[in-house]
């Protein structure tokens, strides 16, 4: 059933025709292509791989990338709205698109040579190649600067050694954007599937983001040609990618929140207890009102951040603000929604438990909730509380 999305403050009036059309297109796509199959994929713990081609056909890979390289040439607001609608389906599907767009195509476009861009971007846009982004390591999560994966200069290229963990799409990927230390400084490399010494086993046993592949990346003396090095030094390389992905996430999670809110509203109006719909009890109304209020505030934050991104004025701290807040209200909404649905809330028939479980990953990845608190705390006080 198509869902009506809450727009309590008529915020649609803030968007342009094209932006609304992008949203509508992805909304229709999610209704007809994602929602009917996602629960089954989630239960089985697989990413529905046939969606990759369909997402590419819609132009959802390389949304902000120039048409010359196969992108859609759209703005960040369009990108955000697309992520929102995908995540209304499932955070796993949105994660797939986030990685391809912000963590793979963005760094190649930004830091790759013209040759590398022409070689990879059109393929990535058409889903002929899938990418992944390797930053996190078993012993370095919130503190990626401590990474031990390293590269050594050899004749004609580099020798890569180390391991990454928790890498979305790792096993599926044809191309990995890998961050490693070269003479103690972080830099980026493109590691291609099939390169000798490179393996990417899938991680199993997740209770969250089940419709997404998460993997380890293992590098054992992998030889990387000179041309596959990205032209960027320092942590600002991976962080610039994360800023874009986090921006997409803060829009995306509003989709999950809208989904659980709509489901709660429908359910509470039709579920009769003590002779009346549970929506008629004050406690339930308070929960619904809380969700709608927080969703509306998140929508405003997202819209404004989109405009700032499009003007090139958004700061990484503003992005942290939005990621922290919007994921937090989405996960709270999902938990409340799970509660409103009673026993039905734990069933796959309703999307609420799936969203609630997914959002646990979203709260942790791309900077945990608390790490974003510290980023903001540092920004407003000038005192770092990380160490």
């Amino acid at each position, binding site marked *: 059933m198509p869902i*009506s999305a809450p727009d309590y403050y008529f915020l649609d009036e803030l968007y342009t025709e*094209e932006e609304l059309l992008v949203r*509508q297109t992805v909304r229709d796509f999610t209704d007809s292509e994602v929602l009917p199959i996602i629960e089954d994929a989630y239960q089985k713990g697989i990413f529905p791989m046939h969606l990759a081609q369909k997402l590419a056909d*819609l132009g959802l890979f390389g949304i902000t990338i120039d048409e010359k390289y196969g992108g*859609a040439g759209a703005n960040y607001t369009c990108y955000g709205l697309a992520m929102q609608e995908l995540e209304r389906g499932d955070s796993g599907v949105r994660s797939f698109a986030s990685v391809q767009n912000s963590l793979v195509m963005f760094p190649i476009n930004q830091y790759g040579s013209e040759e590398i861009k022409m070689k990879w971007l059109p393929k990535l846009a058409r889903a002929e190649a899938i990418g992944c982004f390797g930053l996190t390591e078993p012993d370095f999560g919130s503190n990626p600067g401590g990474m031990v994966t390293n590269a050594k200069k050899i004749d004609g290229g580099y020798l890569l050694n180390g391991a990454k963990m928790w890498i979305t799409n790792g096993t599926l990927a044809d191309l990995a954007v890998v961050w490693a230390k070269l003479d103690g400084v972080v830099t980026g490399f493109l590691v291609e599937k099939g390169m000798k010494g490179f393996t990417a086993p899938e991680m199993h046993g997740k209770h969250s983001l089940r419709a997404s592949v998460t993997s380890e990346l293992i590098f054992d003396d992998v030889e990387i040609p000179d041309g596959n090095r990205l032209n960027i030094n320092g942590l600002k390389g991976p962080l610039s990618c994360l800023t874009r992905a986090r921006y997409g996430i803060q829009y995306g999670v509003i989709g999950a929140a809208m989904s659980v809110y709509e489901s709660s509203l429908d359910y509470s109006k039709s579920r009769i207890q003590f002779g009346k719909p549970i929506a008629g009890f004050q406690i339930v109304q308070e929960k619904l009102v809380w969700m709608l209020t927080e969703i509306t505030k998140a929508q405003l934050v997202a819209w404004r951040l989109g405009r700032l991104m499009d003007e090139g004025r958004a700061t990484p701290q503003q992005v942290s603000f939005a990621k922290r807040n919007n994921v937090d209200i989405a996960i709270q909404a999902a938990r409340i929604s799970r509660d409103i649905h009673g026993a039905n809330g734990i069933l796959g028939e309703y999307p609420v438990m799936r969203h609630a479980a997914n959002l646990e990953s979203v709260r942790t990845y791309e900077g945990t909730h608390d790490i974003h608190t510290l980023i903001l705390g540092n920004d407003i006080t000038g005192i770092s509380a990380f160490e």
Partner: protein
Amino acid sequence: MNILVCVSRVPDTTTRILVGPDGKTADKTGVKFVLNPFDEFALEEGLRLREKNGGSVTAVTVAGEVAKDILRTSLAMGADKVAIIKTENEFDSYFTAQNLAEFASNRAFDIILLGKQSIDYDSLQIPAYLGELLGIPSIGVVSKLQIEGNNVSAERDIEGGKEIVSAQLPCIISAQKGLNEPRYPKLPDIMKAKSKPIEEVAAIDCQPRTTILEMSIPSKKRAGVILDGSDGSLDKLVTLLHEEAKVI
């Protein structure tokens, strides 16, 4: 093939419609509008005919300025040209048909496609009106279409079955669900649609033949309560009739 597709802008099926304070018009506050779903089938069919036979697809709407958004949607889906026949007044199906006929009459279209109905006012009159005004065949509620040369063969949904009808081009086809699976506009095409021109045509003056006197929302059906035949439920019945229905 010179193809015309007539499109309209209607409230999204998921929005809640209220009647305005005048009791005659819909209250548009907060209502989302979309390209009429039946027109999407018509447009898709037009695009497929062009892909097969070459030519061009023009999408046209009779509406106010606000309806330019559905023309952009039409461009993004693949229409070559779009036009708006502009009027800011309330109008009826006759007015729409007269204006579409005027637009079509001097442009030599081989085929005119449109949805079998607009899901807002559901008048279902335009395809027939247009056929009459242009003096060409009009085949309604078509769920399968084949065109070879000038020969048109159309499968129509009729009560409890199908009917196959033939006609010659030029003709009018109104689209039923099932005719095809409309494509999604692609993001790059949505971006390109932004810079394509929208032709503006002033509506011709013609008196509407009907006026809306009143509009109302159907009263809510109350959910029934089924009681079993026990003695206990007899007491409950009396209580319900007394306290809920207030008839005794």
